[in-house]
């Protein structure tokens, strides 16, 4: 590949969604066809570019683009194995979500604004994945907050505005604290590129206190989006957003941005050795384990489908944090692969919840009785997603939990296996009854608000196809985990590169 491409490909990947987004803002409501074509054009270009980059990174190439920004911290975009994991995830799921959103929002007002911000949101996510240093990461992290706020309040009702305010209060506070931490670290070591093995080791002696403070500040800032324990309050409330937005928030954009930031921080800023030297892993591990149990526990009591899924997200995202915090290669594989697997599973579940709500007006779990006969495909997809969350083989969820368990054994933290088992049990306890209701209980009354969206399928095809796509994907990722194309092998490649330095 020519050096020109190597320089501008990361930028092109961001622009492929940013430019259509900006054009969409200027379109009129009635220009539906043009808007849809622009959206799909952006998605396709992005996928092709990502594919190109994926091939090249696999072959060992590096991508690097920089603009002068702050002294000692340029605006750097770089494509390495870890960033590609997140880029591929967000691009593929963006495709599914775009189609879903087009179907979901058909005939609703203010669609130009919605799709404009939608594209900005994905651009910010991809930028965050490609960010080459902490300052660039911070920049996209804040942009993501700004781009998602209009989506959360899109309905414009009092309830969604309240949720939006809470969301902003949490994420902006988190952003400011992250900025404080990044500034502290910058004053100590500047902001070099993310490097496997970290870059703080050089200033370790004499600055232990400040480094620990910086780590704590940054984890707090990232923890808000990753919904770590005391900072998770915004997530269940942000459920009032339209279904495609919830799906995006939970599977790709916001929550994952926090988790991805924690991965970068632990492996590429501090590095395993400094983490050991500063004894930072243990508290992070405890926090993540507590969040896993707490999220599952709270999910048990929720009667609203989306709220139950929201608490489940709180729990599941912390698996990623936990896998990272264990600092062992196997656990890292588990955490990284869960980043992808959780995304695909959770997006399936949210699509399904949206389908039930759109087609039949179902929002509560007790209304799901017998839905398997009316909407078999959606119910099947939901079942697969739920089984994946519990960790039943051969779904994708099993693979990540297997590696996390192995990792816990490897770093000799047997109590973590207990945490996994307990959380798995609770997962089963809140998902299995739902599955039971869908398939084995008779319909208890007329559906709350039934709509015939299609003559041929159980619901509108644009709502159905993305669900089928992600449901198949999550099974394939489990069944073909051993092949070269799977996220698992990619996670292994990343871990190999991350841990190779020592």
């Amino acid at each position: 590949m020519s050096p020109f491409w190597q320089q501008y490909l990361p930028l092109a990947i961001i622009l492929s969604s940013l430019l259509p987004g900006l054009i969409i803002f200027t379109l009129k409501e009635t220009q539906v066809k043009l808007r849809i074509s622009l959206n799909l054009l952006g998605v396709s270009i992005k996928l092709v570019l990502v594919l190109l980059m994926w091939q090249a990174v696999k072959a060992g190439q590096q991508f690097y683009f920089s603009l002068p920004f702050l002294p000692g911290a340029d605006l750097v975009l770089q494509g390495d194995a870890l960033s590609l994991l997140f880029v591929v995830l967000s691009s593929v799921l963006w495709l599914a979500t775009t189609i879903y959103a087009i179907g979901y929002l058909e005939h609703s007002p203010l669609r130009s604004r919605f799709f404009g911000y939608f594209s900005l949101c994905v651009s910010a996510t991809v930028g965050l994945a490609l960010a080459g240093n902490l300052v660039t990461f911070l920049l996209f992290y804040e942009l993501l907050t700004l781009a998602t706020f209009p989506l959360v309040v899109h309905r414009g009702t009092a309830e969604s505005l309240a949720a939006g305010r809470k969301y902003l209060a949490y994420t902006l506070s988190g952003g400011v604290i992250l900025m404080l931490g990044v500034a502290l670290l910058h004053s100590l070591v500047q902001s070099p590129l993310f490097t496997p093995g970290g870059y703080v080791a050089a200033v370790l002696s004499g600055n232990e206190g400040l480094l620990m403070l910086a780590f704590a500040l940054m984890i707090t800032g990232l923890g808000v989006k990753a919904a770590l324990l005391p900072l998770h309050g915004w997530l269940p409330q942000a459920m009032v957003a339209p279904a495609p937005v919830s799906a995006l928030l939970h599977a790709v954009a916001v929550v994952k941005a926090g988790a991805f930031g924690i991965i970068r921080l632990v492996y590429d800023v501090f590095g395993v050795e400094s983490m050991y030297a500063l004894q930072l892993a243990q508290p992070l591990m405890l926090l993540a384990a507590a969040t896993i149990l707490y999220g599952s526990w709270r999910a048990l009591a929720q009667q609203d489908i989306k709220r139950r899924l929201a608490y489940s997200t709180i729990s599941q995202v912390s698996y990623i944090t936990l896998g990272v915090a264990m600092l062992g290669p196997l656990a890292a594989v588990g955490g990284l692969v869960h980043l992808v697997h959780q995304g695909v599973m959770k997006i399936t579940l949210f699509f399904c919840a949206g389908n039930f709500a759109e087609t039949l007006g179902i929002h509560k779990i007790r209304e799901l009785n017998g839905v398997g006969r009316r909407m078999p495909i959606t119910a099947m997809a939901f079942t697969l997603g739920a089984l994946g969350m519990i960790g039943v083989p051969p779904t994708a969820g099993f693979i990540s939990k297997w590696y996390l368990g192995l990792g816990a054994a490897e770093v000799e933290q047997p109590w973590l296996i207990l945490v996994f088992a307990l959380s798995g049990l609770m997962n089963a306890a809140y998902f299995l009854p739902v599955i039971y209701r869908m398939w084995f209980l008779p319909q208890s009354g007329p559906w709350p608000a039934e709509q015939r969206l299609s003559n041929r399928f159980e619901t509108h095809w644009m709502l159905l196809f993305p669900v089928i796509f992600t449901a198949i994907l999550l099974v394939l990722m489990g069944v073909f985990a051993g092949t070269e194309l799977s996220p698992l092998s990619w996670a292994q490649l990343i871990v190999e590169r991350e841990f190779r330095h020592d």
Partner: protein
Amino acid sequence: MMVLLLVLPLLGALLMLLWPKVAPLLTLLTAAVCSLVALQLVSRVSEQGSLQILLAGWPSGLAISLEANSLSSLLILLTTVLQLLVALYAVATYRRDKLGAGFWPLSSLLQLGLTALWLSRDLFNLYVCLELLGIAAVALVSLSGDKAIKPALNYLLLSLFGSLCYLLGVAMLYGAYGVLDISALALQWQANLLSSAALVLMTLGLMLKAALWPLHAWLPAAHAAAPAPVSALLSALVVKGPLFILCLLWLQLAATTQAQAMAPLFSFCGLAALLLGGIAALRTPLAKNMVAYSTVAQLGYATLALGLLLQFNQPLFAAALWLFVLAHALAKAACFLAIGEMTATLGGKRLNTLKGASQTMPLAMFAFAVAGGSLIGLPPSGGFLAKWALLQGLWLQGDQLLYLLAIVVVTLLSAAYVFRVVALAFDRAKPVKPDFAPHIVPQWLALLPALAVWAMTLYSEPLLRLLKQEGL
């Protein structure tokens, strides 16, 4: 070149009085030409270092001397560009908003006063500029008609009082040292009771004119009462004039002991302004008052940076100080123009008027939000650059956790008042209907400075370099 920057607006103002019909055109023309000249000045100063001229060939000491260093030239560029922008906005709206004919010559005089102020390095010349600035500003506020009489009078009295305090200080110094040129005065400076008293008097006067907490009470009423283009000029530029003189006094004249004694006071005033101004902005029900209180709060950053600069003598704080001034000027101009446009179109002064504005006037609302991002300090905006410099300075200094904590709190406070408006704008329940079809051009003009403040980051490296080495 510098003379041209002074003569053009003066000549323009005189011609406008003679031919009122072409006044808008003349204003635009002067501002445009001056912007080009200012741009050239910036590039020349950054290449050759600071320029100094003595007017009319008199020997130094007698002649009026003008000095353009990189900071002054940047401020001149800012002044002329904002002047041009505001004039364009005024041209686009003056039929609708019934802006008085006095606006055109007065705004040119304002530009003259500011340009002269950035270039002067002599205490008495600075006083003259200050007076010119004050009178022009008061007259501009009173353009709003009857409802602005009271705030304008208030502004006039306080402004005159401030000038008198300053003049008294100047007289004391002249009696003691016999010179008024700042660099000459600095050579003979002694830290004694007299010089301290003079400094305190001048500082009081300047703080009053710059609306630095706790002497800010006149600002919200005056800035809110003025027509939108005038508020933009006042908040963006006029309050920065006295601030500039204040920095000259304390950074170039005051002895280290005096500066050290004053530093905590400035820091305290800055924090108090940020905190109390922010709270006031959060509580006020009126749209323009909110923006005006935000000016009080944001000036606190500059005061805080000045205090820290005096205390620690760290060049990063100098950079932070002037970055705040530049970023705030652009952002505040955008805010006032956007809010002015929205209140004019939606018909109402209260914040509630902006309900649903993201549907009815998306462009203006976007301009406000983008400018607000810089006020909060979100990356990659000019406000972020300034805050970053401040944070870097504090972390490098070490053991300044209290300040850092305070900065977190006030950042969130500013986010609260900006997003209070933005959240209101996304309310879809009962959007306020526009009184007439929204005009597109003024909305774009409000957006331009907001985009410019985000574009500042593209030039962060040269900006930081210039401002750090310059200090003043």
